[in-house]
């Protein structure tokens, strides 16, 4: 029987053999693998890119104090970006399922329409949820826009729900019972996270502090974006990546406030707009910065 980490190893190995950079998780808290700069910024512009990484993804509102067998505050996504998407991308994806021991002749697999949208990132795509014997195991998306920008090369994004896939393969009714390794269960590794973050997000997070933090991070992102000069000869040095970290901080704080019940419906729309504004700002500046770099390389050649 494959353990949780065996499955991670096999998938990473599979995609590494297909030319992907294997990245480590991004070190700022995010709600989904899509938000990492390895996806959000790399999909912009004309440069091909291939990357795969496991990203712990935080959804404060989904926490259930470790009680619900299927819902987690923090689940693990294996995120694969293939830019541009190869013609046989679906066959490659099916190959990855076989690589973790799923015999596709003996299981039912369906691609059901499911388009993806992230309003805070100005991003959306067209795709499917992949259903294996009735269980959603993957979100498959052809990105169309990111940061409000049409994409030069359409990437395929493959996002595996690792806990679900492992529970499926190990035939477990609860994700807490899956084997992380032979000697440790998922519960051993993650139960404390689930319990304590649920308590924090739902009961103890200080609303006033979070609002203050949100505004500080938002202010820092806005300050940097304002200082970015597209005409500057030195713009290559400009810290847009740190500016983007501020966007991620805002997004996570927003999600925490939301879980805490501190955001009214009317405020909610406004908050999404605020995060979107700085996310789109970074995306546009980043594209501008990269294009200049590209042009310079072109000239040098």
């Amino acid at each position, binding site marked *: 029987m494959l353990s949780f980490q065996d499955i991670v190893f096999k998938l990473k190995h599979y995609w590494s053999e297909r030319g992907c950079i294997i990245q480590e998780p991004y070190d700022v808290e995010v709600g989904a693998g899509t938000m990492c700069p390895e996806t959000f910024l790399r999909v912009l512009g004309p440069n091909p890119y291939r990357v795969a990484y496991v990203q712990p993804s935080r959804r404060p509102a989904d926490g259930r104090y470790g009680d619900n067998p299927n819902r987690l505050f923090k689940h693990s996504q294996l995120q694969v970006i293939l830019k541009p998407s190869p013609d046989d991308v679906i066959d490659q994806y099916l190959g990855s399922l076989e690589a973790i021991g799923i015999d596709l002749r003996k299981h039912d697999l369906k691609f059901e329409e499911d388009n993806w949208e992230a309003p805070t990132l100005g991003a959306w795509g*067209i795709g499917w949820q992949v259903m294996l014997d009735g269980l959603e195991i993957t979100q498959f998306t052809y990105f169309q826009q990111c940061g409000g920008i049409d994409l030069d090369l359409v990437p395929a994004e493959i996002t595996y729900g690792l806990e679900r896939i492992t529970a499926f393969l190990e035939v477990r009714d609860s994700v807490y019972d899956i084997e992380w390794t032979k000697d440790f269960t998922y519960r051993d590794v993650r139960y404390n996270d689930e319990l304590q973050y649920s308590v924090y997000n739902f009961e103890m997070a200080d609303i006033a502090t979070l609002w203050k933090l949100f505004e500080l991070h938002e202010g820092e992102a806005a300050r940097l974006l304002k200082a970015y000069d597209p005409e500057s000869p030195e713009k290559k040095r400009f810290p847009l990546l740190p500016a983007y970290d501020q966007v991620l901080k805002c997004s996570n704080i927003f999600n925490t406030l939301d879980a805490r019940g501190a955001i009214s419906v009317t405020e909610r729309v406004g908050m999404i707009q605020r995060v979107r504004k700085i996310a789109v700002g970074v995306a546009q500046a980043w594209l501008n910065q990269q294009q200049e770099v590209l042009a310079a390389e072109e000239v040098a050649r």
Partner: protein
Amino acid sequence: MSLPFLLEIGTEEIPDWMIPGALESLHDLFEKTEIPHETVQLDATPRRLVLRVEGVPERQADSEDVISGPASSAPEQAVAGFARKHGVSAQDLQVRNGRYTVTKKTVGRRYQDILADSLPELILHINFPKMMYWTGKTGPRFIRPIRWIVALLGEQVVPFELAGVRSGALSAGHRRLGSPEIAITIADYERRLRDHYVILSAAERRQKIQSELEGVRVKPDAALLDTLVYITEYPTPIVGSFDAQFLELPEEVLVTVMRHHQKYFSVQDSQGKLAAKFVAVMNIDADPDGFVRSGNERVLRARFNDARFFWETDQKKTIADRVQDLAHVTFQAKLGTYLDKVKLMGQVVRQLTDDQHAWKAVWLCKSDLTTELVKEFPELQGIVGGLYARAQGEPEPVWQAIYDHYKPLSMEDSIPRNRTGQFVALADKLDTLQGCFRVGLIPTGSRDPFGLRRAAQGVVKIIVEGKLEVLLFELFSGDEALRSFFEERVRFYFKDVRGFKYDEVNAAMAAGWSNLVDLEARLGRIQDLRSSPDFEPLAASFKRIRNILEQAKFTGLGAIEETLLEAGPERELYDEYRRIAGQPIESVISKLRPKVDLFFDKVLVNAPDARVRHNRLTLLNTLLKEFSTIADFSQIVTNF
């Protein structure tokens, strides 16, 4: 010689609900090419759109065009220039009707070439509600990436390239059971696909599902069956089961989980009650080890556990106690929260009825929007509220009214089952309509984001079918735009839904439409009257009367002065009118018509004496008014 033509557009999985429309669009586009042909057949699976045509000629007929040039009297230079321009010598020109002409022969093009030229454009023009790029922002757009194309005319490939894909004679089998490349000919196409686990015909896939389910009491669900037919290439149903303890949950919740979230059919026992079983349709041929069944059972168990958790959690707070929480749920930015909405609905329902149950149901009907179960299954709004109300001891008319208040969801759907529910549903829809019109959210063209047409249609249907004594005009609060919006919906309902003739609807509505129950009754009478041989002639006479009155700018003042009536047809018409006034038109039409006809035959309305003239106009106006209470008959289209 005529040839068969095959086009298979191979794609990644197309959303099931878009496929029938796409085939229709493909068919239309092919017809527009004006390529001669005999029969056309369209088929599709999630991964291919297929057009098969019989009887395409090999090439166009040759054609001759005669081009006229200079007159036969023209100078030699001009004639030579004309000949040169068309690549012939002056001797080859013929003179017809006094002009030099040249005959140009065009050799008909091969349809293989014509198809090769037109197919790339044609394919990219197939209409889908949503499109995507899959190479980049300047690349082709389609519903999903195009991965292969088969285009054969007879035995020849119709060669073209689209989106980096070259057309050919290689199709593809089932993703997991078939081969990714299958060489095919038009003759063996369908059979070769079947060998590779693709059933091309949707009808046959449907048949396969149905026949393999014989003996299972599946709850019929035509829409779900359509979906399953178009998300599979080789459908095979399997029966799974779940723990009978879940049957304690409301059937509506269980069925929704199975249907909307898992695309399962539910199964009934011999008494018609929900059984602890389900049917899943796989996209493979068999489940010999039971992996698929047990996998689906496990997923369903987790889903049902969630639903039970929500059901139990939600009950900790009654729906009555949840009403104030609606202050945090936005209905529409400009219209406020759902708490505002139920308050306004309260005003509307008090205008409609004194039924205290309806007042109460209005107050409670939106509370379920705050429950976990509705957040999880939004399609169960209303129903969940009704179920909670029942569990919390609300009287039957109240809980049923809450349960039904979104009805009718379409013109085919039924109206709420009890009177209380009908009033609550009316109050909900009318409040939405009044509110949206008040703040200018009025549907334009095909844009109707708040479903106002459906809401107004629902209002009409509930009043008519529920036979409710409601006067619509009193509910428009003077909003002219809302009035004319409703006028259109009333007309649509009687004409398109109920099938009355458009002139009957116009005629009946011209006599008033505030009371829809009365309008329906009058329409029924007009429909019956129409079969009378006197009807259309009388209607034509009424039209004539109306024209005469309009031309005379008759204001309708004054009474008929009997002394001014001329003996004969005029007097007889008047006497007849006196005899039949106040009686329903059905019983008097045969008496009235000959008198009217005779009057127009013999009497000059425009009498020279102004007083006589005025008296005649008064007589006609009186007549028109008397018989126009059920309809304005002058609106009836007649052959007279």
